[in-house]
């Protein structure tokens, strides 16, 4: 067993083990790593906001390109700081209103397009693709029924009774089969990530595997 001589690798390895120790139980090592992680990543976030948001979108346009329009978002952003005042506290609602108004306006139609129109198109296209022939068409129709019944589960205006109950139940079956499959399909990806970490520990830190 030969250990790495790189102190940085040691730090990385020990922190990895500290995080893994949580699997046994919450303990002083995990607590240390967790607090370090929160601090380091929050600090990294500050640097990212500064370097990637403020500098290119505010500092450079205003001070280098002399595009003084960009002072406006700066001023709106500063309204966040009024929240500590009882009298002018409501001013923080202005930057919020700008963010929310823009966000809901910008995403409304594209979401409808992607989640409703596109899905309608695919649902019909998949179930009526005569070129697939035979079983392909059968499975297309099965999937079509799955879509309709799943959708019926989300009908809130009626008590789930009678036909709606049957349909919603079939919908739940589809949902459950789908979720089980997604779960089973994800196991390999997650194990792969763990393998990556174990390989780091056993290759870079302790040179066991070549």
């Amino acid at each position, binding site marked *: 067993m030969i250990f790495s001589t790189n102190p940085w690798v040691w730090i990385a390895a020990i922190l990895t083990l500290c995080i893994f120790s949580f699997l046994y139980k919450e303990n002083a090592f995990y607590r240390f790593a967790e607090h370090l992680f929160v601090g380091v990543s929050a600090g990294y976030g500050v640097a990212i906001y500064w370097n990637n948001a403020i500098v290119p979108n505010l500092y450079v346009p205003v001070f280098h390109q002399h595009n003084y329009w960009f002072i406006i978002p700066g001023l709106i952003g500063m309204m966040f700081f009024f929240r500590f005042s009882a009298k002018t506290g409501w001013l923080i609602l202005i930057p*919020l209103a700008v963010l929310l108004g823009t*966000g809901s306006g910008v995403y409304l139609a594209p979401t409808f*397009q992607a989640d409703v129109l596109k899905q*309608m198109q695919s649902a019909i296209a998949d179930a*009526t693709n005569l070129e697939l022939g035979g079983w392909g068409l059968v499975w297309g129709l099965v999937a079509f029924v799955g879509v309709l019944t799943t*959708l019926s589960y*989300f*009908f*809130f*205006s009626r008590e789930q009774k009678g036909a709606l109950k049957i349909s919603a139940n079939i919908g739940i079956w589809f949902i459950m089969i789908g979720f089980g499959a997604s779960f089973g399909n994800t196991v390999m990806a997650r194990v792969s990530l763990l393998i990556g970490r174990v390989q780091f520990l056993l290759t870079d830190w302790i040179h066991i595997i070549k």
Partner: protein
Amino acid sequence: MRLKIYALLLAMAAALPCLAAPPGPAASEAPMAAVTVAPPSGIKAADTPNDAGNAITVRWQASPDEARKMIEGYEVLRAETPDGEFIKVGYVPYGFTSFDDQDVPANGKEYFYRVKAVGRESQALSLASVSARSAEQWFNTMRINALVSCLLFTLIVVIFISRAKSGQSLFIRRIAGLAAVEEAVGRATEMGRPILYVPGLSSISDVATIAALNILGQVAKKTAEYDTPLLVPNRDPVVFTVAQEIVKEAYNEIGRPDAYNHDSVFYLTDSQMGFASGVDGIMAREKPATNFFMGMFWAESLILAETGAETGAIQIAGTDAIHQLPFFITACDYTLIGEELYAASAYLSREPMLLGTLKGQDWSKAVIVLLLIAGLAVSLINPGIREIILQMLKVG
């Protein structure tokens, strides 16, 4: 394209003036050149539709030599005058008969195009040139389906809201996960332990976050009533600010501003896994009696939910992140699936306007189901109509 427009016109029985695309300039035929490969013919140039300008679409008919596999591709050339210097602006391989010149220098100015067939050994240039002017459009006709359907949806929602305002009682069926909220808060009070509420990891412009904050307001009212400690860790700075306001307001509304603890809504870090490690630590140390995971989540969903399950908390999750739902379903006691998260604010508050919106959503679903069935039926009978329907639903 045309089909889609006509079909929509029929469906809506409404005429919109902006639909008719302006006809392109007359095309000119290019005579055969005396070289080994034949040039493309029937060249047409026209403004590229539905764009911000500075683009012209050039179309042609393939060189007859393409069938003999002698053509490799086509070069598109542009000049400012019919006999000026033609420079290459693009190349497409064989099998393609159109090209969008995206770098047209000026809108409204006439540009001339020629297309050259490129063979293995020889090339053939279309003799005459065609011209077009690029222009910007003020309406994207490819998106008319989205505009019409969004407006229709809005109309349905507004009708139900006005019905709700007029005092009609609106029924909403029981949603298991939400019915459990009261019980979950009560349990925490009995046990003398806090409630943990994670309003998702996304930003304020993610609508799932808004839904989560809405439910947070309802939960905070209950914790204010029972005087149960509330913990709300945040990942997004803006969401954190709003969450703090919402919780404060909830305590005010219940008349317990004294019970509000400013430190109960706090910010952790904007790193996804850093946040997960922090919340894991909090769950392991504070042992909340109830955990709420509402809003948008990514891979951390299972990390949070499994840790919470180990500490013995009752867990109620809700997300529209389809990929994460399987993990919440397996590890939580109740899970609001997709739209149930959005129905929650109406369900919990029983406010008529919100209930009206939910009714509007429901009827829209009914319309979608009917349209799907009708679409399926006619598509199976007639492949031509199938094409029209698929065109109508095309995302532009």
